[in-house]
């Protein structure tokens, strides 16, 4: 009963803060500094609420599936609320830091522009480069796993490449392949090739020799052995590379657009809008990039889960 009372008090505090932010005129912290206390109290309220939810998670494991995603959501909500309150409350110039609400406005009002940028950067450059880079890394690993000579030459080279900033080749690629998306795709191919190569190779080498012998006693053909035994065992490593590459690819495309691009694309948008001090538009582009990045990462994680449900690393999760 007491618990119930406390949590409704916490919710009330957060609601009060929300009302303050939406209704008060900008600059309210400058007029009455004591209002900041409410923000601090709502911080405390959110922390207490999150604590309760975590405890609920461990005491009622059946419903943990529904409660668990709530916790990071509330956490992010509080951060955005604090951001909005501080920007509004101290009337911070939008050139410095735009409020979340104005970023949202910019996002909604500029959807056609943002969609064109997204298509140029993501649907053309990132997808083409990602597919080509991952596929060639995968094929090269197939080849290297059979030849010790190739392996001993390529693995040190791959390790060396992981230590160096490959995005630096962007100006060269722009010079070779022109301003359009092909040069961005070329940067991504080089960036994604080596992680895929090294991971696939490690995965294929970690396959159990006993399994191979078993497939041999079944008189399995080479392709059967590969698809039914070796590839599934290497999949966790391959998915690691796929997930890593999905974030690398977006970075590569945006960096390459700084070295020259037609007047469309996310990197171009960011650099021009920073120059024009339209920070809300810059942030809107970042939101698009973050959503695109998170969705592709999430999609890969889901695919991994559906393909690797049998793997110990996923079976183990059900217990917690």
């Amino acid at each position, binding site marked *: 009963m007491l618990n119930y009372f406390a949590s409704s008090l916490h919710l009330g505090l957060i609601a009060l803060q929300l009302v303050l932010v939406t209704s008060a005129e900008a600059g309210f912290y400058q007029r009455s500094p004591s209002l900041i206390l409410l923000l601090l109290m709502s911080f405390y309220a959110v922390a207490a609420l999150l604590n309760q939810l*975590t405890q609920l998670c461990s005491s009622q494991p059946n419903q943990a599936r529904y409660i668990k995603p709530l*916790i990071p959501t509330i956490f992010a909500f509080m951060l955005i609320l604090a951001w909005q309150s501080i920007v509004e409350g101290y009337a911070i110039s939008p050139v410095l830091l735009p409020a979340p609400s104005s970023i949202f406005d910019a996002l909604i009002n500029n959807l056609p522009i943002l969609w064109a940028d997204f298509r140029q950067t993501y649907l053309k450059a990132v997808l083409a480069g990602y597919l080509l880079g991952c596929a060639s890394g995968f094929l090269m690993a197939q080849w290297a796993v059979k030849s010790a000579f*190739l392996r001993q*030459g390529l693995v040190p080279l791959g390790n060396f490449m992981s230590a*160096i900033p490959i995005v630096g080749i*962007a100006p060269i690629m722009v010079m070779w392949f022109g301003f359009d998306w092909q040069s961005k795709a070329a940067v991504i191919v080089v960036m994604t090739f080596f992680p895929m190569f090294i991971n696939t190779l490690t995965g294929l080498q970690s396959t159990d020799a006993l399994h191979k012998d078993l497939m041999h006693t079944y008189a399995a053909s080479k392709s059967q052995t590969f698809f039914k035994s070796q590839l599934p065992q290497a999949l966790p490593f391959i998915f690691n590379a796929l997930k890593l590459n999905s974030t690398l690819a*977006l970075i590569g495309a945006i960096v390459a657009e*700084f070295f020259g691009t037609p007047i469309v694309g996310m990197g171009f948008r*960011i650099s021009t809008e920073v120059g024009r001090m339209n920070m809300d538009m810059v942030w809107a582009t970042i939101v698009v*990039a973050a959503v695109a990045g998170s969705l592709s990462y999430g999609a890969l994680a889901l695919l991994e889960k559906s393909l690797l449900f049998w793997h110990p690393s996923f079976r183990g999760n059900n217990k917690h």
Partner: protein
Amino acid sequence: MNSNSTVRKWLPLVSLIVIIIAIWYLAALIMNGNQLIQNLERKKQDWTYSQILSQAYQVKRPMLPAPHQVALELKKSVFDTSVNSKRSLVFHSVITLNSTLLGFVFGSMLGMLIAIGIVHNKTLEASLMPWVIASQTIPILAIAPIIVVVLGALNITGVVPKAVISMYLSFFPVTIGMVKGLRASDTLHVELMHTYNASVLQTFWKLRWYSAQPYLFASLKVAIAAALVGAIVAELPTGAQGGLGSRLLSGSYYGQTQQIWAALLMAALLGSILVWLVGLAETALLKRRGGLTNA
């Protein structure tokens, strides 16, 4: 026997590098040759293949400079120019190195702090961990200009904005590795600490910290490479006056291909040296604990 095995170890790598350099020379010949032919044809001049062949490696602004041209440019800008000159690559490397190291130190400290918080507090884990992972799906370059503008308005300029971007890239591997490492201590040992009635602090300093070290160093190697990428990338949109990133940018503006390649090679060298240094520290520390254990 011993020398035989070293030969066997190095032969593939050396032959691969020789093949790459041969391809490089051939590609330089074809790409620069084509450029030359186009130029000459535009001027309506006659040309012969032997003429192209002799000039292909001496073009002033080649599409692809041959390896020896890059090496010459590297030598010129590293050894033949004074270190304080703006034409010296050492000068630019030091600028990049400064923000890399600062960002790396901040990033690893932040990463460790977050990891310690996550391991000891379930609420923190549930609320923070998804966002730590999501933070890496935001393309870092996208926030570089913003960080520079915001910090510039607060009168923070120079090395700090770049270091912040390095920090953003390098904290992630440290957090992930450290969480794994802090949880990797033997269950029996944890229970033993429990029977000793050890406090959380004692368990941390006498047990968890040691189980985390091998994981920590594996992550630090990734983190320092990431910090270098962050520093170079941060120099692009910030209009930095110096640094390897600004060398790349100015080289690309003025079509100075040799300058781009030399800066790229320098960055590669810097990256591998930094990773090697962390590896050295790792070996030294883990040796004291009784040899390398593969984490």
